[in-house]
C-alpha cells in the first residue's frame, strides 16, 4: 500500500475512537496480511473508489460492538438492534471520512461508498490475494481492527 495512505487511516482511527469513546486508545503494531481472515463477529465495510480502488473493513467482536454502541449512545443497549447497527455503521463512516479528508488535503482524490454492515458467527473474508494493512486498535471496550486494502489504479 502506498506509504502516504497509511498515516491518514491510522490517525483517523485514533482520533475518532478517542473522540467518541473517551478513555485510552492504544494502537498495536501495523502489519500486512494477504490471506483470507476470520471476522470477529461484526464487520463494517466501506468501499473506496477514485484514484484508487479498495475497501476498509472495521472488524470487532459482537461484545465490543455492543459496548461501543452503548457508549456512543450513552445508554445500555441490550441487543444488537437497528440503533446499535446504525451506530457501528456511523463509526465506520466517521473514520473513513476523516481519513479521506486528510488524503484529499494531500492531493489524493477518493470517493467512498455507503458502509455495509455484516454480522454473524464464523465469518471469513476472502478477497482474492489482496494485501491489506491491519491497524489494530485497543480500546476500553475491546479490540477494533481496521483492515485497509487499497491500491492505485493502473
Amino acid at each position, binding site marked *: 500500500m502506498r506509504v502516504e495512505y497509511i498515516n491518514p487511516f491510522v490517525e483517523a482511527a485514533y482520533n475518532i475512537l478517542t473522540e467518541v469513546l473517551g478513555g485510552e486508545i492504544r494502537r498495536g503494531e501495523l502489519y*500486512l496480511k*494477504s490471506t483470507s481472515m476470520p471476522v470477529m463477529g461484526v464487520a463494517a465495510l466501506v468501499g473506496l473508489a477514485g484514484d484508487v480502488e479498495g475497501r476498509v473493513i472495521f472488524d470487532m467482536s459482537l461484545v465490543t460492538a455492543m459496548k461501543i454502541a452503548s457508549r456512543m449512545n450513552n445508554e445500555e443497549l441490550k441487543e444488537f438492534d437497528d440503533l446499535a447497527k446504525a451506530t457501528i455503521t456511523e463509526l465506520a463512516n466517521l473514520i473513513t471520512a476523516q481519513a479521506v479528508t486528510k488524503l484529499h488535503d494531500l492531493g489524493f482524490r477518493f470517493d467512498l461508498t455507503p458502509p455495509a454492515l455484516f454480522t454473524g458467527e464464523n465469518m471469513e473474508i476472502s478477497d482474492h490475494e489482496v494485501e491489506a494493512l491491519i491497524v489494530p486498535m485497543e480500546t476500553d471496550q475491546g479490540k477494533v481492527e481496521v483492515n485497509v486494502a487499497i491500491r492505485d489504479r493502473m
Partner: protein
Amino acid sequence: MSDTAVKEADIQGAEARAEKIAVVDFKMVTFSLAGKDYAIDIMQVKEIAKAGRFTYVPNTSPFVLGVYNLRGDIIPIIDLRIFFNIPTKAREEDALENMIIIHIGEQTFGIVVDVIDKVVGISKNSIQPPHPIFGDINIKYIHGVVENQGRLYILLDVERIFGVKAKEIEEIPAGDMAPKIAEPKREEKKQTRDELDISFIGDTLAALAKFYVSPVNEKWVTDRYRSWRDMRPADEVQLASEADARQYLDGFYSPDTGTFWSQEYSNAFASLLPDNQAKQINVWNIGCGKGYEAYSLAVTLRDKYPNARVRIYANDSDLLAISNAPMLSVEEASVPPLYRPYMTKGVNGAWAFNQAIKDMILFEYHDCNNQNAVPNMDIIVSRDVISFLSLKQQSKMIAEMTDKLKDNGIIVLGRNEAMPQHSGWLRNVQGDIVSFSKE
C-alpha cells in the same frame, strides 16, 4: 591388571566373600572395550540397540559421534572408546554400532561400545573400590571393580560421566584427547567436513539472520566460508550468535546499500541499461529500504532516458524504513554532486529531491511475498532481497519476476546474488554489476 585385582580380592576375608556372593542384589550390563570388560548398573540402562549413520553435530567434543533418532527422541551418541582414549578401529560408513541406551535423571544417552556381553547378577557388597593402578580409564569414572566367574569387570560410574557434572568433565577429555584422536580423521574427511560446516552455517544463517542459502547466493556463501574458516579459531567456525551471523554476512551486501549510489556505481548501472525508445518505462524496486536506492535509481534513469516517463514502484515491508521515504531529506554535506541538480534546499537547510524526481517514484508498504499488483516491468532492481526470503518464497519470487519482466527487460540483483544457472537467464557484466535478461 587382573593379577593385581585378584590379589585385591584375596585380601578380603574368604568367609565374608562366600556370604557376599550368596545374595544377588545388583545387576549390571557387561560389555567390552578393546578386549577389556566393563559394566554399567542395569538400573541406568534403558535398552540395548544397534544403529549406525548418526547425524553429525559440528562443534562438539570428539567423543560425541552425533545424534540419533530413537523412536522419536533425539539422543546424543557418545563413543566410550574415544572418551576413554582407547584406540578405535576405523569406522565403516554404514556399519551398525552396538549401543547401550542409558538414562540419567531426565536425560537419555546412547553409548557406543565394542561388544555387549550379558547381564551379570552380583552382590552389592562385592563391589570393590577402584585401585589407582587402573591406568586405562580415568579413575574418577570408575565406580568399582567386580569379580564374577573368574572375570573382572570395571563398573563405570555413568552418572559421573554423563550426569550433572558432564559439562566440566567433558572439557578435560575434549582438551587433551581431541588432537590425538580426532585430528587424523578430520584430515581424511576434510571435504565432507567443510560441506557439513557450510550446510550447518546455512541453517544457522536462516535461524539467526533470516538469510537462506540457495542457488541465488550459494557461490558467495561457499567462498565466504573459506575466508571465515581461516579467520576464526578452529572451534569457533560455527555461528553462535546473531552478531556472528552479521559478521559472516559482512561483505555480502551490495555497494552503496542504504545510501546514495556513488558516481561509479551509477555509471556502471547506466551502461547496463538497454536503449529503450518507449514513452513509458516501468521499474520495480523491491526492498527499497529508506528510499536511497529508489532515488538513486530515479536520478540514473532520468539521465539515461530523458524523454521517457519513468515510473518506479518502490516496495519495502519494513514500515519504519519506508515511512519517511517519500519525504527523504538529507544534510547538505551528504549530498553527492551527482544528485545536487535534482535536489532543492528546504527551509530548515536540509536537502530534498525536487517534485519531478519524487513524482517518478511510488513508495509502497508492501510485502513482495503477497500478491504483487504491478504492471509489466522494463527494469527490476532487487538487491539483497531474494536471499532473505525462504526457499519456497525465493522460487515464487523468481517466477513472479520472470512473469512481470518484459522480454527486453533486465533484472539487477545484489552483488553476490545471481539467477540460478541454466534457468533461462543471460548474464551481462559491467564492472561490479551484473544484469540478467531473458534468453
